[in-house]
């Protein structure tokens, strides 16, 4: 299986722990992947104004690079990149007038018609590797680890780009079960962490993050698993501030799903770059005798 992989900006710096664990896991699972050459920032958010086409140019350029590489599929790890690329792709597929304008503006590029399939790595695990096949590869099961599966917004909304079209997300729980862990019942799985409001209205974003963390703690989870570096920042890195301000009863480690995957596949824990997580993450895995 040949896969073109789009990393995005954050994975090359702040979220190396999301990327390195994924790249090592892809190799271990026999996925023939190649990083997209000359990729650019996708823009992180989809433009919602009807007259704002210029901001679609960045993600569309990335999709053109995929075609140029001779690929029909691009896989992302970051949820925000997934959402931005998938929505730009849909726009180019479905809106003839806007497609013409955008292609006309990029007259140095080939015309793009929305030919590429934009996938999140979680979909590849579910649809192309499959849970049974993945289960057979597990060397270090996450025995006894109780996990709250957190999707946030951009993997599930809007509906036309949801990685779980049923409206009842089960993918992350299935992954955790396959890795030998125990998913808990978690009511805030698709709640918003506050997203970019951590810049504009940090108190509001922290209040949203607190509600999610409270739910995770209430659910009895020992850890949260997620796939977005901005969610990880609001829910993981910002816990220290929430604890300082006595807004949380206790901390809860947050992992990228790729880190738990790599550990379960028996890969060297150094590929998981736990030094970029909160200290409690490594401690939890050691306490549970997973590491």
């Amino acid at each position, binding site marked *: 299986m040949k896969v073109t992989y789009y990393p995005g900006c954050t994975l090359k710096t702040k979220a190396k722990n999301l990327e390195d664990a994924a790249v090592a896991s892809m190799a271990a699972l026999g996925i023939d992947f190649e990083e997209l050459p000359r990729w650019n920032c996708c823009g992180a958010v989809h433009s919602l104004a009807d007259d704002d086409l210029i901001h679609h140019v960045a993600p569309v350029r990335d999709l053109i690079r995929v075609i140029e590489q001779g690929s029909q599929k691009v896989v992302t790890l970051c949820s925000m990149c997934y959402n931005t690329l998938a929505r730009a792709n849909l726009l180019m597929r479905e809106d003839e007038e806007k497609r013409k304008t955008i292609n006309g503006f990029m007259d140095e590029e080939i015309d793009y018609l929305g030919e590429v399939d934009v996938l999140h790595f979680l979909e590849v695990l579910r649809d192309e590797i499959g849970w049974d096949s993945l289960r057979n590869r597990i060397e270090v099961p996450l025995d006894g680890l109780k996990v709250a599966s957190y999707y946030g917004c951009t993997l599930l909304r809007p509906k036309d780009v949801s990685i779980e079209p049923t409206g009842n997300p089960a993918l992350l729980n299935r992954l955790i079960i396959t890795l030998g862990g125990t998913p808990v019942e978690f009511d805030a799985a698709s709640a918003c962490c506050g997203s970019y409001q951590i*810049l504009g209205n940090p108190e509001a974003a922290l209040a949203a993050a607190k509600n999610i963390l409270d739910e995770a703690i209430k659910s009895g989870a020992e850890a949260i698993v997620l796939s977005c570096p901005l969610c990880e920042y609001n829910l993981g890195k910002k816990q220290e501030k929430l604890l300082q301000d006595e807004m949380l009863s206790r901390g809860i480690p947050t992992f990228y799903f790729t880190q738990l995957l790599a550990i379960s596949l028996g890969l060297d824990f150094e590929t998981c770059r736990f030094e970029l997580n909160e200290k409690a993450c490594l401690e939890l895995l050691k306490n549970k005798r997973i590491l």
Partner: protein
Amino acid sequence: MSDDMPIKLSTRTIKNSFINKVRELSGQEFNKCMQCGMCTGSCPMAEQFDISPRRIIRMAQCGLEESVVDHKTFWLCASCYNCSVNCPRGIDIARVMEALRLLTLRKNIDYAELSGLLEEEIRELPQIALVSGFRKLTG
């Protein structure tokens, strides 16, 4: 104007140009809103608003530009899409909120200032936070 004050509507208060601009920018027929409040009920920022998204939509329907831009509601929107996927009238409310932001941002008035961030914050924040934040909150 206090939020509890009744709003008087007349041909002088209804600004059709504002209604048309929001409709044009958002591509949404927000006149279809029947004020059920699903948007507010599903909004993660509901506890933070001075007035709810439902009321903002009503004010926009009535062309009350000054009253709408006077409130922070659309600046607190995180584009999480809960309102849009839950709206029984099929209104993409996140697009309406974007249109309301742009009406200010396109006058060269920013909501967020890069200079307001601490050096430590810039060092720590993931790039997607900076890119998305400045895309949504600056012009």
